[in-house]
């Protein structure tokens, strides 16, 4: 008689992801008994500590929610507060902010693709041995990551925890010299992106499909970044202020991060969700890159989130160059609108590198925050990761895979979501 399979996978503090999460898989008599995605990160209680703070200081606090996507957090708070207090920033400041978002996303995607994801596909424990085995690939990755950081530094004063993003606009505009240097740098680094694309096209992406609902922003005129309608691939369209009905947060016993859902049991946010909802608004060069990977909307393979990030890098390079040109023609002195604090309440939704991010803030007459709510992209992916793990482990068992193979697939799956766990718990 054939021996039935029995094993337990218990991965404590999964490496090469931001934050602390555990994977638990149990198989008894060849059948899946448990598959859990448990977030064990310590909460920092940002929604409580932001209460009582002056509006102008809030973006400097909320940016500290995340060490990778601090610009997105800063701009989500700024958008919420500017809408709440009816502040209209000058056009130049809005362009600077869009460029800053591109810098952050390029940096984040390059970090994920090269440092966190690539080692899985080359059977390496980290990017360090890859520096020896594939030096030209790592060099390309570092060039893209450096470019992302440089865009963020030029637009916001620093690459992590922005300095000059403020209510009413920006506190300092980049100089023409820095913008011209950035323009040259973007053009010079296009070959690095080509090399990266060639390299990733040689990797084998696991085949796995579990139909899900993809949530992102959509504005109808440009690939989404700051503000817009909340949409899903199941046809849901809601106003930005209606964010609670797009998340429906709930608590689960095994996680310090909350779970969310919309129409189905779970939903997904991130590069693949943006791609699935906004394919037609990508730059033609990015669409061509997607075609080379056979990536088409609506794609339900979560492993393809890696490819969607790469596709977005192509879009960012083109769009960032266009925004730099626009700034070179703009009035770089008209960057900040004066305002008087007042009572109000509004939502700011932005597309952070890992997906749609909501800050909802309410102020009193003096502009002090009286209520805050932050819903993080990874929070919106937790349930999807959890149920994907279950389906993937079932598939692995049906395919006759052993414990080591199953574990490897599950780990790559979680990393494909590029989770930002401390952010999700905040």
């Amino acid at each position: 008689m054939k021996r039935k399979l029995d094993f337990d996978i218990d991965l404590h503090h999964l490496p090469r992801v931001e934050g602390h999460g555990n994977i638990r898989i149990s198989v008894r008599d060849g059948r899946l008994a448990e598959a859990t995605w448990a977030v064990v990160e310590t909460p920092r209680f940002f929604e409580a500590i932001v209460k009582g703070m002056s509006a102008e200081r809030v973006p400097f606090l909320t940016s500290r929610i995340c060490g990778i996507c601090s610009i997105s957090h800063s701009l989500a708070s700024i958008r919420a507060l500017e809408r709440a207090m009816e502040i209209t920033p000058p056009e130049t400041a809005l362009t600077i902010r869009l460029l800053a978002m591109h810098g952050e996303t390029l940096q984040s995607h390059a970090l994920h693709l090269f440092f966190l994801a690539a080692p899985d596909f080359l059977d390496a424990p980290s990017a360090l041995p890859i520096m020896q085995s594939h030096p030209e690939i790592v060099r390309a990755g570092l060039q893209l990551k450096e470019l992302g950081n440089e865009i963020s530094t030029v637009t916001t004063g620093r690459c992590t925890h922005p300095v000059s993003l403020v209510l009413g606009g920006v506190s300092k505009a980049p100089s023409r010299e820095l913008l011209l240097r950035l323009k040259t740098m973007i053009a010079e680094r296009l070959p690095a992106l080509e090399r990266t694309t060639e390299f990733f096209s040689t990797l084998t992406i696991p085949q796995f499909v579990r139909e899900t609902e993809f949530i992102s922003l959509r504005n109808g005129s440009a690939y989404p970044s700051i503000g817009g309608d909340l949409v899903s691939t199941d046809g849901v369209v809601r106003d930005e202020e209606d964010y609670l009905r797009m998340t429906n947060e709930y608590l689960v016993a095994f996680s310090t991060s909350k779970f969310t859902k919309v129409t189905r049991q779970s939903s997904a946010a991130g590069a693949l969700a943006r791609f699935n909802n906004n394919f037609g608004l990508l730059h033609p060069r990015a669409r061509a890159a997607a075609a080379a990977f056979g990536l088409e909307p609506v794609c339900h393979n979560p492993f393809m989130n890696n490819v969607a990030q790469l596709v977005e890098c192509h879009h960012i390079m083109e769009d960032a160059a266009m925004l730099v040109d626009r700034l070179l023609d703009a009035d770089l002195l008209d960057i900040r609108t004066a305002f008087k604090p007042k009572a109000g309440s509004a939502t700011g939704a932005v597309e952070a590198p890992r997906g749609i991010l909501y800050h909802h803030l309410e102020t009193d007459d003096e502009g002090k925050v009286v209520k805050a709510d932050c819903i993080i992209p990874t929070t919106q992916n937790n349930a999807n990761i959890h149920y994907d793990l279950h389906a993937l482990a079932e598939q692995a068992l049906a395919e006759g895979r052993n414990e080591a193979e199953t574990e490897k697939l599950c780990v790559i799956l979680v990393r494909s979501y590029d989770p930002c766990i401390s952010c999700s718990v905040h």
Partner: protein
Amino acid sequence: MNHLGFELQPLKIASFDFTCCEGCQLQLANRESTLPEFLALVDIRNFREISSERHDDYDIALVEGSITRSDEIERLKTIRARAKMLVAFGTCACFGGVNSLKNRMPQEAVIREVYDGKAIETMPSMRIGDIVEVDYGIPGCPVSKEEVERIVVSLVSRSPVTLPTYPVCVECKQRLNTCLFDLGEICLGPVTRAGCDAVCPTGNTACLGCRGPAEEINFPAFAQLVRDKELSMADMREKLAFYNGFGDYLEEET
């Protein structure tokens, strides 16, 4: 590695994170143009955020974040026992950071605000130095990679590790910035330790003191400056409390 005839050994380092945003560790992978040279100076033994290799033999532990849960205390003590040198890495580790803002409120109220009655363990945010002995602190929110590079070179070459003793104003003047006080804003530059190249005032925003107090500051003169300029004392207190680096001075003032 040979430098000027001296044989130098790479530092066996490990990087650990507690309650934080992990932004300080991330700086280690920044400044990409000098990254290969930087990595040649260190032998990374344990760094969960970028590597699945985990070894327990390390000489230097970089510890990021503050402490807010009992399991973190145990983990930190184990790290202290294994490391020859422990570095509090970043503002949360050195001073408690923005996490300490929750210490003003009863912890039950903080939990209720976010988790709606679910039982969640947390305690007032503590510095790394409140739990274990700290050999060096590298402040900053986030740490400055340039400063980290400088300190790593000092450690490899067995030179003394130093931080600037003077305030941010010195660096700000070197960058020829207009003083924010002259623009009507309170800036903590006069009382905060330099080493950040005055990055915030250079971007036209106030220093919020992430690097903690400089040595031998004249705090009463700073408070007097705020009063003389008829600026808001409440604003000054909000700024001083932001990173928890000025606790003693805040009490003095209020």
